[in-house]
Structure formats: structure tokens, C-alpha cells
């Protein structure tokens, strides 16, 4: 088990290296720079600015400085290795770490709330559908699921606003700050995922309740509740767990659109504007952060298998 985790951890090194190189090259391949303005600056000032941010260095040196492998022009090791995402180029007074500290919690809160909705709605719906297979409950929840799968967050968002904010007036149209503000965006974000989870839970539950060990559990006289919760659900949850990792990552990155619709000051909105402004360090930092996050959540999912199903052995 620990050997498996260590091997997976070592594998993340080339993955992150590759992602950082590709992102770095892509970001720098985009024509134009962060200091291109409508009115050209004097060449000396431009050169000084470039020098200050190390943009006058050769590209490979900029990369190794950024990653913290080599000393930067001011003679320090300050890069990703040191958990220093560097200064923001267009926002003079802020570092990327500060930007993350200010905006990431917002996106993360939204992502967690959406995941809670996805699991909280999806799992019970899937269980009910499976336990009462081919009943009205089953058809109703699967019909709901196909609606959820088909209607993307970009559509659910405006419709929720139309219904709950504009027609009924229960919730604020947009903004951020209170519990009421979180409800609609996280619903918009989480509903499609809850539909995926509902269908998956139903499918794996249907498979599991036909297994011998469930019959054994029933035969030895356990109550139906214990059979379902302790024996069936635990195993039925394995395929669901596999999608949770990538799903959470998708939810957090999927906030891009939702943050725009609901005017939420999250990292996604910041990322988009950084691309237009050629704020290299913010774009690089955000991509790397999300990639790290994706790798970590996949690893976490792989490890949780072992706890859910002891039969799974790590080679």
C-alpha cells in the first residue's frame, strides 16, 4: 500500500514537469506581452520593466527560475519548488500567492458546495431507483437524471436566476458573501454531476444487490437497513468514488462560467482576464495549481479504494 502511494507520488513529478513546460511554452507563444499598451512606453522603461520581471532572460532560464530550479536574477531560489508563484505582472503590488489566497477560497467553496449537492442528491436518488427498480420512483429519478445530464450549468444558471431571483424573488440575482448567494451557483454547478452520480449509483447498486454476500447477509437475519447501508452501499460506492476525484476537479475548474453568470469573485474569472492581459505568472500558477489538485485528487481516490474494498490489491 505505502509502496503504491510512493510510486504514484514519484509518477506525479514527470506529470507536473510536463504540464508546467507545455503551459509555459503555450503562454509565451501567445503573441504580445504584458507591457503592450495602446500608447508605447519609452524603450528604456520597457526594457527596465522586462528586466525587473526577468522577461529579458532566455526562455529556458525564465522557466527554471519560475520553477525554482535556478537562482533568479536577484540571486534567490524563488519558484514553484519553494511554493512561490511569483509576482503578478499586471497587478504590481500583488503576488500570485496573494491572489490565490484571496480568490481560491471562493472557487473552492463553490466547488465543495457543488460536490456536496452532487453527492447529496445523486447518491440517494440512485439508491432509491435501484432498490425500487422499474417502479415509478425509478423512472422518475432516472428521468430527472437525464434532465440533469443534458442541461449544462450554463443553462441551469440563468434559468435558476429567472425562477428564484426574478420571478419568486427568494434569492439574490448575483453576488457573493452570504449563504443565500451560494445556493444558486452551487446548484447550477452540481446538478449535472448529481445526475451522473445518480445513474452510476443506480447501476452499481443493481449489480451489488444481486451478489452472493448480500444474500448471505439477508440469510443470517440482518435488518434490511444494515444490509443496504453496511454491505451493499459500501461496495456500490466504489465506481462512484472513481468519478469523484476528476469530478471535483472539473467542478472547481467549471466555476469559470458560473462565476461570470453570478458575478462571483473567484479564481476562474481572474484566470480569464489574466490570459487577455498576458499575466504569465497568474496563468501559469493557476494551471499548475489545478493540475496539482487533479493529480492529488486522483491519488486520493485510488487510495480510498483500498478502504472501501479490501479485495483490491495494489500491484
Amino acid at each position, binding site marked *: 500500500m505505502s509502496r503504491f502511494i510512493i510510486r504514484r507520488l514519484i509518477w506525479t513529478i514527470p506529470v507536473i514537469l510536463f504540464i508546467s513546460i507545455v503551459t509555459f511554452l503555450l503562454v509565451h507563444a501567445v503573441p504580445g506581452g504584458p507591457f503592450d499598451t495602446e500608447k508605447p512606453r519609452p524603450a528604456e522603461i520597457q526594457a527596465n520593466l522586462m528586466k525587473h520581471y526577468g522577461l529579458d532572460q532566455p526562455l529556458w532560464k525564465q522557466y527554471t527560475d519560475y520553477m525554482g530550479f535556478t537562482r533568479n536574477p536577484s540571486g534567490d531560489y524563488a519558484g514553484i519548488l519553494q511554493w512561490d508563484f511569483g509576482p503578478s505582472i499586471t497587478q504590481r503590488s500583488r503576488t500570485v500567492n496573494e491572489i490565490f489566497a484571496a480568490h481560491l477560497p471562493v472557487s473552492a467553496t463553490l466547488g465543495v458546495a457543488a460536490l456536496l449537492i452532487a453527492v447529496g442528491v445523486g447518491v440517494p436518488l440512485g439508491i432509491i431507483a435501484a432498490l425500487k427498480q422499474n417502479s415509478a420512483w425509478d423512472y422518475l429519478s432516472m428521468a430527472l437524471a*437525464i434532465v440533469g445530464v443534458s442541461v449544462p450549468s450554463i443553462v441551469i444558471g440563468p434559468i435558476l436566476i*429567472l425562477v428564484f431571483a426574478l420571478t419568486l424573488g427568494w434569492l439574490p440575482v448575483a453576488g457573493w458573501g452570504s449563504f443565500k448567494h451560494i445556493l444558486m451557483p452551487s446548484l447550477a454547478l452540481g446538478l449535472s454531476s448529481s445526475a451522473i452520480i445518480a445513474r452510476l449509483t443506480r447501476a452499481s447498486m443493481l449489480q451489488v444487490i444481486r451478489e452472493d454476500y448480500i444474500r448471505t447477509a439477508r440469510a443470517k437475519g440482518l435488518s434490511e437497513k444494515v444490509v443496504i447501508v453496511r454491505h451493499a452501499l459500501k461496495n456500490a460506492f466504489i465506481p462512484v468514488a472513481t468519478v469523484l476525484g476528476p469530478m471535483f476537479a472539473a467542478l472547481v475548474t467549471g466555476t469559470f462560467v458560473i462565476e461570470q453568470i453570478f458575478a462571483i469573485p473567484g479564481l476562474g474569472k481572474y484566470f480569464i482576464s489574466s490570459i487577455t492581459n498576458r499575466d504569465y505568472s497568474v496563468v501559469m500558477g493557476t494551471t499548475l495549481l489545478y493540475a496539482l489538485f487533479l493529480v492529488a485528487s486522483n491519488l486520493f481516490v485510488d487510495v480510498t479504494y483500498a478502504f472501501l474494498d479490501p479485495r483490491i490489491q495494489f500491484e
Partner: protein
Amino acid sequence: MTKQESAARALASGRADAQGLNSENQQKVTNLWQDAIYRLTRNRAAVLGLILIVLLVLMSAFAHVVAPMHFTAGDAALNNAVPLWLTKVMPGHMETYTQISDIYPLGADYLGRDLLSRVIYGTRVSLPVGFVGALTALLIGLIYGSVSGYYGGKVDNIMMRIVDIMYAFPTMLLIILLMAFFKTSFGGNQEPGTAAYTFNQINRAVDGLLGLQGGGMLFIFMGIGVTAWMGIARLARGQILSLKEKEFVEASHMIGARDLRIIVRHILPNIMGPILVAITLNIPTYITTEVFLSFIGLGVDPPTPSWGSMISDGSRAIRSYPNQVLFPSIALAITMFSFNFLGDGLRDALDPRMKGTS
């Protein structure tokens, strides 16, 4: 279909006992695909999905006939105008602050262009994105996965590690970065003779072919194509790994068939079912990706009408003119429903054991 025919089909697909039919002289030989098509046509949701897709395709092909106006046409003086019927069904009191004009069946956008026409022309963006995404995924994914699965060993190991690395990329971020790169490097006006110029020209040709103006569709195809194939590659590899040990593959090896022939003639037909299902169910993902991109301003360029950019414009005016966000949203939802219904139906038809699962 006559009762006899359907009885024969039921027999052939091994459901005779269930229906209590046993007339052997009517037995007809049906292959997997005929059987699947039969089952598909019995699935009402799938048929509805298929009909809607055909209608959408026709609508996009004949958008210039179906739409009341061209997507750039409009009267700037009538910006945000709404027809009378909308003021009665929409929340709020639109009639108190906006112009009423029945020229536009669904209202006009902020530049006074007909919303209905733009929604109709929007199919020329969304459907090609869905189909080209599917085609790229099929071509690259299938070839990549087949090679990896068939040759196995070191080749497989390296090829699948590459897919693993690609998977670790936050897909949406990668596509956004690619789009920013494509649009700034190849878009606009380029110097003749450079590679960027060639790309630029191909892009214009693609836009022209789709009947759009300056949409930058090629870049969207490229951005989505780069990330679309990985899932299919993994699926194809897995299927082939389990198939290549089968006797019929061994038998063709014995009689001296070449690798390419074995893959194309013997293995691929056997794995096309699950791949077709996966691809159909992936089409909505490609379509939403484009909608997301256009929403954040990195998708198609104006004045090309994308549902994404229309939802973006509309959601900015959602308090005053909710119709502007509602109709493109409905169009998108209908498209997504159609492909999901068809995909689900295909899966049930090709593998009845999977019926009702995930």
C-alpha cells in the same frame, strides 16, 4: 412491420420464450447490427432524439431559408425590442420600459438583431463542433488505442503513459490556453507566405464552408480535437486487449493475415459498438465546451452567432430582457437532450445487458 416479422426478430434475438412464440419456419437470421437497429427503433426516447438531430441538421443546412433574417441583419433602432406575447409570459413588466415590435418573433438582441434567426444560425456552430469533435475523437482515439492495445508491451506502456499525462492536464484550462494561442497567432490578418497565413486561410475556408462569417471555427475544432480523443483511446485499447487473445484472432494469425488486416477486418468491427456509444454520449461534451468557450469570449468571434456568446450577452441583460438568455439556452438544452437520448438508446440497443445502467 408485420406481426410475423417482429415475431421472427424476437426469435432471432433469443427472446422467443419471453413472448411465447415458437414458429420455427419464420425464423430469420439477423446479425448484431440489424438486431440493434430493430431495438433502437423500438426505443421511443432514442427515436425522438434521432428525429430531433435530423431536424437540427436540416435546420443548420437550410438556416438561410428557415431563418427570417440573416444573423447580421437587424435594425439598431429596435435594440432589445420584444414582441407583445413575450411581455405577457416573462417575469416583470417588460412593456413598461422596452419597445414592442412584432417583427421579431422572439425579440431582438442588444444590437437589434433577430434572436430567432441567430438561434437558428447557432446550429451552424454547435452541430459542426459536435460532429467534428466526434470524428476527431473517433479517428485519433481509435487508431491510437488500437495500436497501443494490439502491440501491447513497451509500446502500450509508453503510449498509455502519454495519455495519463494528458489526463492530468486540467482539460478546460488547456483548451482555453490553446484557443488564446490559436486566435492570436493565426487569427486576424497574417503576412502571406507564413504558416500562420496558411492556417488563417484554411480557417476562412472552413468558416465559408459552414456559411458563417469570421467565426474562427477551425481553431475551435483544433482546440477540442486536441483533448477529445483520450477517452476513446483508453476505451479502444481496453477492448482490444481483451479481444486479441480470442481464438478468431489467433486463427487469422495462423493463416498469415497481416496486422493491419486483423485489426481492421476482425477486431474493429467487434469493438465498434461500445465506441459508437461512447462517442455519441461525448458529443454533448464537445458542444458544451464550445458554448463555454464562446461564453468567456474565447470561442467563435462575432458576428457569428454561437449559443454560448448569446447566453453570455443575454445573462448580462437577464434582469431586463430575460428572453435574450432563455431562447439560446433552450436551443442548447434540446440539442443536448437529443444526443443523450440517442446515445442511451444506442447503448441499450447494442448491449441489452447494459440496459438502464449508468
